[in-house]
């Protein structure tokens, strides 16, 4: 009898707790639903239609025509490949540099806070401003970087953002530099939550610095790394602003990425259906990569 009463009341409490929780989520979720979820669903629908934004003609259902067009669109192919290259290069580089920075700046070095601030600065600074400075530094003829390179004997330094072989590399370098400070902060938080006792124990077992890093730090940072991995990956797939500022998708289409192409198709050529279809491809790419990453994480943590 007494157990029965207890279950009822605990069930009631659970429901009440749930309601309270939902009510806390509601303001954010309603905003998300209205401004994000509904437009996303509309984009799914639009990807099967032809629409140039006109209210007079309205969207027309065209079935899979937009998806068929993907296979003949050479710009899409180029954008797809570029996005993959950019992501594959930027993700590991960002993770490695931000982890290294975090490890260094977690030690009690001289003027630690100053260096932490310096590393975080590119992330806080306005993209437009730092991109302009970056382009001035890396300007092919008069830029200081190439002048230094010439001074040390490299007679034909790369043209960076306007060199067809180097434009993508320039873009990747810039992105890594711009974002590493942000992920460094995440790694710093992760590092500080590692119990010092683990290092002490490892030290007693005779582990050296490299071994401590390999067998204590890295596994303990697993969750942080996973979060960083997912965030950087998604950020890379979504890249647009950096491309616009540094290379403007050039030279030619050498650094054209998917979002840039979507923007052009949607808001310059007003082919909203086709733009939505490309967005769906991007969405699927990110979804698949994220699911694979979740699976992988579960395997590792188990």
């Amino acid at each position, binding site marked *: 009898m007494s157990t029965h009463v207890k279950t009822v009341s605990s069930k009631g409490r659970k429901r009440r707790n749930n309601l309270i929780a939902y009510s806390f989520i509601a303001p954010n979720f309603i905003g998300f639903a209205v401004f994000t979820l509904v437009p996303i669903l*509309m984009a799914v629908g639009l990807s099967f239609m032809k629409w140039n934004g006109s209210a007079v003609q309205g969207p027309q259902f065209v079935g899979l025509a937009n998806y068929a067009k993907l296979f003949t669109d050479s710009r899409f192919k180029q954008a797809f490949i570029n996005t993959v290259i950019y992501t594959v290069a930027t993700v590991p580089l960002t993770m490695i540099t931000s982890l290294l920075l975090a490890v260094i700046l977690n030690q009690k070095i001289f003027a630690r806070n100053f260096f932490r601030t310096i590393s975080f600065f590119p992330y806080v600074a306005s993209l437009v401003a730092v991109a302009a400075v970056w382009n001035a530094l890396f300007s092919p003829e008069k830029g200081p970087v190439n002048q230094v390179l010439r001074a040390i004997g490299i007679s034909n330094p790369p043209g960076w953002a306007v060199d067809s072989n180097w434009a993508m590399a320039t873009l990747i370098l810039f992105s890594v530099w711009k974002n590493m400070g942000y992920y460094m902060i995440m790694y710093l938080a992760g590092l500080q939550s590692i119990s010092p006792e683990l290092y002490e124990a490892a030290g007693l077992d005779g582990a050296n610095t490299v071994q401590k890093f390999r067998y204590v730090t890295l596994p303990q940072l697993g969750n942080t790394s996973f979060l960083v991995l997912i965030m950087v990956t998604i950020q890379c797939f979504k890249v647009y602003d950096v491309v616009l500022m540094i290379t403007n998708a050039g030279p030619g289409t050498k650094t054209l990425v998917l979002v840039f192409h979507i923007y052009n198709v949607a808001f310059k050529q007003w082919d909203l259906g086709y733009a939505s279809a490309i967005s769906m491809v991007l969405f699927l790419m990110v979804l698949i990569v994220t699911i694979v990453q979740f699976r992988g994480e579960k395997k590792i943590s188990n």
Partner: protein
Amino acid sequence: MNKLRKVTSLILAMSLSASVLAGCGNGSTESQASQASQAQASSQAGGQVKLVWALWDKDKTTYYQPLIDAYKEKNPNVTIEMKDLGSTDYQTALGTQLAGGDSGLDIITVKDVPGYAAMTNAGQLEDLTQYIKDNNIDLKKYGGITDQVTVDGKLYELPFRSDFWLLYYNKDLFDKAKVDYPTNDMTFEQYDALARKLVSGSGNDKTYGAHYHTWRSAVQLFGILDGKHTVLDYQDGYTWMKPYYEMVLKQQDDGVVMDYATLKTSSTHYSGVFENSSVAMMNMGSWFISTLMADNKAGKSTAKNFGIVKYPHAEGVEPGSTLATITGLAVASSSKNKEAALDFVKFASGEEGAVVVAKTGTIPAIMSDDVIEFITSMEGFPTDPNSKEALKTSHTYLEMPMNAKSAEVETALNDDHDAIMTKSISIDEGLKKMSEDVKAILG
């Protein structure tokens, strides 16, 4: 429990990746909200009619307010509100406003041909053909340029400004180099030779012979001046652009002009290099006249002693053949005050409007002798007879001809121009790629 975790992680994965798409959706929601508020704003009150005019650079442009004032003097019951949509993203902002019907806009400024094509395709502009007939508007006074934007016998805009390209030169630099000024009758060979004579100095004090802004129109459109080609003619592989790309790249290699790559990475504005006297000649649109005169007056420029001449021409082509862009006025098909809007468009694009525009030093679409007189007699306009003569054009060709897909073609041409100018691709391969790209769009 395990299953629940699986589901939650899947949802998390989906919502994370969904954030990718969020950017694409937001625009339309915002514009709907702003449309609703504008629709209310443009409703009529009593006998008063309120028109909303979509335009860009409200504060920097000198002729909008005088046009409105002049019109209001004759039509006191009409108020016109300017809606500034910004210059860089004008067409995007405008397209978003017009999409979805009731935009609250009445008068639309048409900035370029791709934008015009996009809006006529979408049925967002009112067909003016019948109105033009009923009101006996003589299209001949626009010098044939309206024919180039007529679609299937229908015209949707009336030009109120017409800009054409000229060659600006810095007289002080010519005097210093002891070289004769350019003339209104120069071939491209003479122009190239002249540019080479004017190079002097080095480093930051270097004077360049000529200057090409990073726009594709500054280089590749030399090729359309013979009137035989438009940029849509991909069939012959764009070989007719080749001599001009060769000339410009050669000048670039020889240090006669600034390097495209440097200009692009430093986002150098053409007005800066001309106004600080680092270039002796520059091809640019006639819109630069009023900017240059204003900057000279304000002391921001050292190129006070400048002159203008007609565009150089190819052998056998009549001098005065040049590129043109028109800025037109149109009426939104969603407008609730079409009649009033049409009347304003008629006024602004007509003779009276032309005089108002000319008084601000800007070139109106109707070029009468009066208008030329107005502009050339303004303070700061070069006093030599050649500069005055330069304003008389013989043939004008649109930078981009009217086509339903001109926005797509524009993107492809810009990319390939960029690739050629940065030498990512050879001229021959670049032109071949250009013709393939355009063929894929139009063919």
